[in-house]
């Protein structure tokens, strides 16, 4: 089952995730299913509310599903994963907040980096490539942004980079002028921005308007396709680290299929959904069982290769907590396109 945000605050992310997974499931079914069986999938909207997420999760469990995809929002995952844990059902999530896998739940698996794993890469980049001595951090005041902010501040500290400013913005904030003003006043060597796509676009536009000229660094959500579409030329020059990007060569095919199917560009959430479905397939095939315990066991502490499972797009490894590791990218936006400037290897050698 897919328990995702299809209405409320997380709609955009949830819809992408759902679409990605749907695409993968259709492909898998068209190719004969998993171990000869077609996948049935139910979609459930959490309305971006944990209470409903919980209802949907128990509903999915009542219907004896093999695995649960989602939710994307960290708060909702926290609720739904306790339920899926009780029922021994593997639960794939798109959330990045660190605490998701800190609960010691053997059935939770990420489809994207834990913030505490992605941020070191960004911090390294700022320290070595940009040689920044001070950084101003702008983040969106929700669990996603706050978690990222906490992680990066820690990493920057570890590298002796000064946090010259710590600026929060509201989810859905429209007017970024005061935030940009504060960014300028911080007078740091670089800006690290960690906001959702829409707000990122607005921030970039306002930065451009007020003539900000320092390096602008971010994570996935600062330079996704959507941001570039919304911010236009204002996105040029943005760079940073992404775990998943539709513009990397490995995702080109997927991108094209997604665009054809849904008339919209996929973002990292779309990839996560797509990946999750194929990951489940790989795990079931490895476990040779649809039993939740067996699937989970097949994934813990093990790696999967693209050459065996083309759908997972990149080689991945899971650790014992369900955190994911895989290659990632350094990118820069040039002429309205995201360009990959470097591939970063997995953090741990598996």
């Amino acid at each position, binding site marked *: 089952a897919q328990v995702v945000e299809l209405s409320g605050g997380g709609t955009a992310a949830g*819809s992408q995730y759902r679409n990605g997974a749907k695409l993968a499931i259709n492909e898998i079914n068209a190719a004969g299913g998993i171990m000869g069986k077609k996948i049935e999938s139910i979609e459930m909207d959490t309305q971006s509310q944990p209470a409903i997420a919980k209802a949907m999760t128990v509903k999915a469990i009542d219907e004896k599903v093999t695995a649960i995809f989602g939710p994307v929002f960290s708060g909702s995952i926290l609720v739904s994963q306790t339920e899926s844990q009780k029922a021994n059902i593997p639960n794939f999530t798109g959330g990045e907040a660190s605490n998701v896998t800190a609960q010691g739940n053997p059935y939770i698996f990420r489809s994207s980096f834990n913030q505490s794993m992605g941020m070191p890469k960004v911090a390294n980049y700022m320290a070595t490539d940009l040689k920044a001595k001070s950084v101003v951090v702008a983040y969106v005041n929700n669990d996603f942004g706050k978690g990222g902010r906490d992680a990066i501040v820690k990493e920057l500290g570890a590298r002796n980079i000064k946090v010259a400013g710590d600026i929060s*913005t509201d989810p*859905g904030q*429209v*007017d970024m002028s005061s*935030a940009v003003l504060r960014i300028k*006043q911080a007078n740091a060597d670089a800006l690290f921005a960690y906001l959702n796509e829409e707000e990122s676009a607005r921030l970039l536009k306002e930065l451009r308007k007020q003539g900000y000229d320092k390096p602008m660094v971010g994570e996935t959500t600062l330079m996704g396709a959507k941001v570039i579409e919304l911010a*236009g030329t204002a996105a040029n020059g943005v760079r940073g680290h992404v775990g998943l990007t539709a513009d990397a060569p490995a995702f080109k095919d997927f991108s094209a299929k997604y665009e054809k199917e849904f008339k*919209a560009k996929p973002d990292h959430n779309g990839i996560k959904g797509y990946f999750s479905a194929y990951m489940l397939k790989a795990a079931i095939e490895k476990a040779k069982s649809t039993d939740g315990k067996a699937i989970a066991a097949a994934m813990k502490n093990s790696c999967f290769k693209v050459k065996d499972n083309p759908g997972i797009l990149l080689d991945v490894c899971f650790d014992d907590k369900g955190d994911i590791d895989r290659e990632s990218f350094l990118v820069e936006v040039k002429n309205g396109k995201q360009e990959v400037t470097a591939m970063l290897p997995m953090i741990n050698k598996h």
Partner: protein
Amino acid sequence: MTDFMQLLLSGVAMGAIYAMAALGFTLLWQAAGTINFAQGEFVMLPAFAMLIGMSMGLPLWASFIVAVALSILVLGAAFKKWIVDPMRGSGVVSVVVATLGLSIGLKSFVKAGYSAEPHPFPSIFGDEVFKLAGVTISYSDVGALVFAGLMVVGLQMFLNKTITGRAMQAVAQNTFSAEALGINVKRMIFYTFAINAILVSVTALLITPTYLAKFDMGDNIGLKAFFAAIIGGFNNSRGALLGGILVGVLENLAGAYLTPAYKDGVALVLFLAVILVKPDGLLGTPQERKV
């Protein structure tokens, strides 16, 4: 100082946007005695209408005209016929809940039928900016302010200086007597909603470049506009402009100099201060004598 001016200016531009949305509320209150919780969605719909128009190859101005026509038809005539008329005399709260339902319905409808994602929207004033005394100003900021001013003055004149405008107010205040005096009540109500339809279309044209076309873009607009309308005075169109600009500016100043975390609370604090001191809003006329 430049920083301060920059903030002030951005605030005024933002405020103009709030004001335009607030204007619709004051209109519906003065001329139809209704509160429309779907007003934000009423702005969202023309935005999408224009988006669809443009995706079919129409230029922006042509899409705008189409959107206005559609708005008058759907948000004016159909809304009046299917929701306002049947609910006449059933009390403000029932109407409020109906428009709440409508707001949920319209949002979800656009989401399911079009897309859940935000879409960029071109500005009629372009993206250019110019500098004045160190302050960066964009043409769309100026445009929004000018339009808001024009709309406010125009609406105020229409409601108070023309006999049709006054007849519309009369209908809102006392439908029974209006009917007994031979005022064409149904037509007046239609005018009200048709004007509102035009207002929201213009608003959509001006604010969507900033807000981005998204199914839930109305949430934020609606709320701020309400506070702006009440701060300025619900029964006065000029109040909407004053209220909007006050909210816009103070929000910006608070975001920069106080705490950005409570930026959204600024409109509220201002609002509370105003209603406690002057319950009818800054420019509102006092309530009627009670006994």
